[in-house]
């Protein structure tokens, strides 16, 4: 199964590269899909513990604004990715210390509240954030190399793909490690963990910090790709979108977020182009169909098709 999953990941990456070559405008869409897929891996991690965050767009927005604010000073995509990931993880640690005291709907809603507080700050502190106008992000050097627009876009696409592979592999290891299995234990028998000497809150907090960190990476990639950040990145619908992608892709395996994100972005682009007034309805219908007929999401369908157990 592990080998098949790896081959499927390779096939998906190959298809993305082929699509980006065949239709250059898709490069933008697919880079955004990869960035969101990376962020949704954090949602998947929390879903393992049975917790749904309705506020993880906070970390995407934080990562994106980190890039927007620091680009004039640091001016290197690699450095900014590291700073955005670290900053988001740190913010996740601070907020996580509070929200991991709660479970279920309280956990979800507190995350949403944090996210909306951040949205309001981005909106209202105009002299710092430029409010709803947002901040433009210029093309920046990557690892010290100055690039023209096309080379820059390909490079960011490549970085997003490489990060998706690397972080996906690390997440896969995390999920079957004692920490990952204890995280899954929170979902069914949190009390037992405590009676085994395991701090359940600490286990959830660790996962929360990781999820915030990958959210920051996703946000940084989005800022580098769209080259314009606005408070809408932190709006509650953006958090809902992440949960939407997680369900669409399936929470059973690390490929789920990427299948979900690619499907989501492609459906959105094509539906918006073909049915400008009804694209949300088409997205909603796609999600309903998945929930009704494939509760394991796209990854669940893929895992069944290749005859294995989703992980």
């Amino acid at each position: 199964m592990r080998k098949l999953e790896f081959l499927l990941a390779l096939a998906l990456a190959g298809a993305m590269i082929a699509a980006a070559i065949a239709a250059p405008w898709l490069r933008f869409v697919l880079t955004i899909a990869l960035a969101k897929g990376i962020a949704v891996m954090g949602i998947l991690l929390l879903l393992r513990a049975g917790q749904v965050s309705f506020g993880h767009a906070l970390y995407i927005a934080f990562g994106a604004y980190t890039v927007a604010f620091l680009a004039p000073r640091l001016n290197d995509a690699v450095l900014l990715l590291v700073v955005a990931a670290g900053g988001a993880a740190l913010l996740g640690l601070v907020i996580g210390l509070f929200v991991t005291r709660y479970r279920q709907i309280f956990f979800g809603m507190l995350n949403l509240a944090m996210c909306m507080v951040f949205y309001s700050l981005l909106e209202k502190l105009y002299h710092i954030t430029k409010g709803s106008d947002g901040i433009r992000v210029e093309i920046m050097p990557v690892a010290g190399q100055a690039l023209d627009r096309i080379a820059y876009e390909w490079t960011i696409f490549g970085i997003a793909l490489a990060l998706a592979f690397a972080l996906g592999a690390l997440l896969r290891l995390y999920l079957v490690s004692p920490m990952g299995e204890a995280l899954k234990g929170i979902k069914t028998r949190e009390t037992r963990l405590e009676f085994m000497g395991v701090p359940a809150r600490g286990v959830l907090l660790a996962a929360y910090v990781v999820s915030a960190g990958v959210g920051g990476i996703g946000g940084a990639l989005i800022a580098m790709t769209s080259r314009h950040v606005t408070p809408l990145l932190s709006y509650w619908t953006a958090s809902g979108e992440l949960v939407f992608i997680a369900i669409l892709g399936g929470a059973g395996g690390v490929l789920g977020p990427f299948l979900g994100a690619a499907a989501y972005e492609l459906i959105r682009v094509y539906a918006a182009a073909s049915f400008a007034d009804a694209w949300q309805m088409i997205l909603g219908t796609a999600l309903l169909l998945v929930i009704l007929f494939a509760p394991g999401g796209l990854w669940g369908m893929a895992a069944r098709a290749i005859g294995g157990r989703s992980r």
Partner: protein
Amino acid sequence: MSEALLRASGLHLAFGGVRAADGIDLDVMRGEFLAIIGPNGAGKTTFINMTTGYLKPHAGEIAYEGRRITGLSPRAIVRLGIARSFQLPQLFLEHTVEQNVALAVASREGIWSPLVPLLRPGYREEARDILDRFGLSAIADTRADALNEGARKLADIAMAVALKPRLLLMDEPTSGVAASEKMAIVETLVTVLRDAKVTAVFVEHDMDVVERFADRVAVWSQGRIAALGPPAEVLADPAVQREVIGIERHAATPEAPHA
């Protein structure tokens, strides 16, 4: 068996008007198997909950190996070497039996390794060994939510044993187990615990089990210890036979689950 491993003195705890512990004084001697019997609602599970940190007594104290543990968290207490099993088995339902036990092994060793598999060679072998001793090897790969009650009970205790405790408290280890399997299960359990030199306290409703396997028996009644001594002596007491064993034999409703 001369030294007290656990000493409870003057424990009081009430839930509203119900006195679940009303001056409990009890020494658990190192190496012994102490059975706790008594009618439902007598405070047996409350004693386990207080000893393992789930409940804090309103008065009195519990000392383990001479150290006061009253008020410590369950996590801190288990690290000192006190583990427990539950009346309603507390398994990780989406994990296999092997993963359940391996997680207990890992939690003893420290679970903070995010990139090494839970079922790494050392942990897997230890989990397999424990399952083998409990006769659970055949169901090692079965998910916990697919087990029958007897297997759940044993797996629950196997997880506690994987923590390598010096004192194990078991809440009704044989309740819900088919009568035909009961003695074999307890036999297995006692062998494993004696081999591991674990001191055991177990709440039990089956007097045959108590008579056969306990070194001493404590009779709980309305939050107090009504009698304490060797099973042959205590179970022969007419008052115990009338007030406790008679009730036990006719008790239809299991004690309300805690924890």
